[in-house]
């Protein structure tokens, strides 16, 4: 009885260690059996590269630090208006978008299949476009002239003119809606 009482504080520790060990044993062994595993393990990400020889940073740097680079760039662009392309998210999408779908999301999307594997949800594409900006050929301008890009092609959903009010009733004097809702 006394031994049991003495061990009580350690019960939490034992439980934690047990959970960790069982977790490692259950999930750890999948690393070896990835591509061929049909037992429900998440498949290893597949990377295809559509453009260029290599990324703007070395692969191992990108793998670990792409989020830091993205975060740093977003603040510079947003608050200071710096639009260098080295770490621009648009340029990432341009290069890495899938050849067929034109997107970095989707089953084989560059961003999504790795993020699905690592179970890290992506927030960027709630707001940012995940599709390649078609025919965005911006050549370096001479000092006094800048060549504008052609209008990006509409890929998936097209931007439609706002309806339900502005186009239909353009210019008409809206009857006041009445004081009582």
């Amino acid at each position, binding site marked *: 009885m006394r031994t049991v009482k003495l061990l009580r504080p350690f019960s939490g520790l034992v439980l934690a260690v047990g959970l960790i060990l069982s977790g490692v044993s259950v999930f750890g062994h999948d690393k070896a059996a990835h591509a061929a595993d049909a037992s429900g393990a998440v498949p290893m990400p597949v990377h295809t590269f559509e453009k260029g020889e290599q990324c703007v940073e070395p692969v191992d740097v990108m793998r670990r630090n792409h989020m830091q680079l993205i975060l740093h760039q977003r603040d510079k662009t947003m608050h200071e208006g710096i639009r260098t392309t080295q770490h621009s998210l648009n340029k990432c999408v341009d290069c890495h978008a899938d050849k067929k779908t034109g997107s970095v999301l989707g089953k084989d999307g560059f961003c999504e299949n790795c993020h699905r594997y690592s179970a890290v949800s992506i927030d960027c594409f709630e707001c940012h476009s995940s599709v390649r900006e078609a025919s965005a050929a911006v050549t370096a301008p001479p000092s006094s002239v800048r060549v504008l890009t052609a209008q990006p092609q509409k890929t998936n959903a097209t931007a439609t003119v*706002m309806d339900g*009010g*502005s186009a239909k*009733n*353009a210019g008409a*004097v*809206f*009857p*006041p*809606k*009445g*004081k*009582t*809702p």
Partner: protein
Amino acid sequence: MAHVHYLKIEGRSIGFFALLALLGALIAAGLGAVLFMEHNGHWVTGMNNQVMWGTPHVFAVFLIVAASGALNVASIASVFGRQLYKPLARLSGLLAITLLAGGLAVLVLDLGRPERLIVAMTYYNFKSIFAWNIILYTGFFAIVAVYLWMMFERRFNDYTKTVGMAAFLWRLTLTTGTGSIFGFLVAREAYDSALYAPMFIIMSFAYGLAIFILVLFAATRWTGRPLGDVMVARLKNLLGVFVASVLYFVLVYHLTNLYMTGRHDVERFILLDGGIYTRLFWIGQILIGGVLPLVLLFSTLGRSRTMIALAAIMVVVGGLVQMYVTIIGGQALPMPLFPGKDASSSFFDGVVGTYTPSLPEFLLGIGGFSLALGMTVFAIKVLPFLPASLADADVDPHHGPNKKTTDTA
């Protein structure tokens, strides 16, 4: 020398579990509503680009204001030294924490991006009163927790006065901040007034005490603990005074606006032809929230506990209505961009904003209320917040000021 015994409630009856089940179901419904709103986006609610703060904010602001006021009873005991209220101090502190938690839950869960709460707590714009409120709310939890600790642990009882004073000042700042959320807005004619800060403080006194009274009545009756008339009479009179003070502030606010020609459209809207807002103001806020409770509390009807409870319920309902008229009515009123002109556009310029409360919003608000009450019910079971007896003999104020309290688990 009389000791105050605090006892955990038994919490084994069917009624207790039924109450917890009911509150749990309401909380679950609220969470379901949140999932629905967050997944689809806010277009499924009644809130829109004209009225962007709706029913959830009505409940949230009400709960936050009431939370600050619920601490009043403890402050009266600790800061102002009124021994009579001392046995109620623990419950008061508890309600302050739980009501604030409920209100903040509603507020956070209604955000467009609730998962970014951590952003709200790490990126601060110190010019924003909203940012200050975030600091004030979290600090309030900490201070009241310490305050309760001082009350619970016998060797620290001497510090309740100091910590109580800190909590009192903190909550005055907090409520000033909450009122200033509206008072600092120059854009909208219904806001833009320094009066909002003190008005919210006095409203907190009324709403907080009303909820406190209801919780106290329910807790003592349902656990069979005595509650004497002395205590009830004191609380009743206090509530009456606070309700009257709220009416005074509302009167001053409207009188001032009525004096200024430029503000006549606001007054006309609220007092005369604002439709639902006018009806809610006169019937909900003034009659049910003000006049009727005063009648009940200060007439001979006030001798009946049922009437007192009814008055408290009416104060709560009136308070919610007051928040509705303030928050939603204030947004619905069109802004004076083009004085002297009738404006119209596809973005509803120049017309009263439409807003219809939707079910998910309402469920979220009720869920927050239920969270607060549920946490209270749970807390009084696991810790001795409630005094064993508040009978007249036990709370007799004629003993010396150095009366020590003992707590027994």
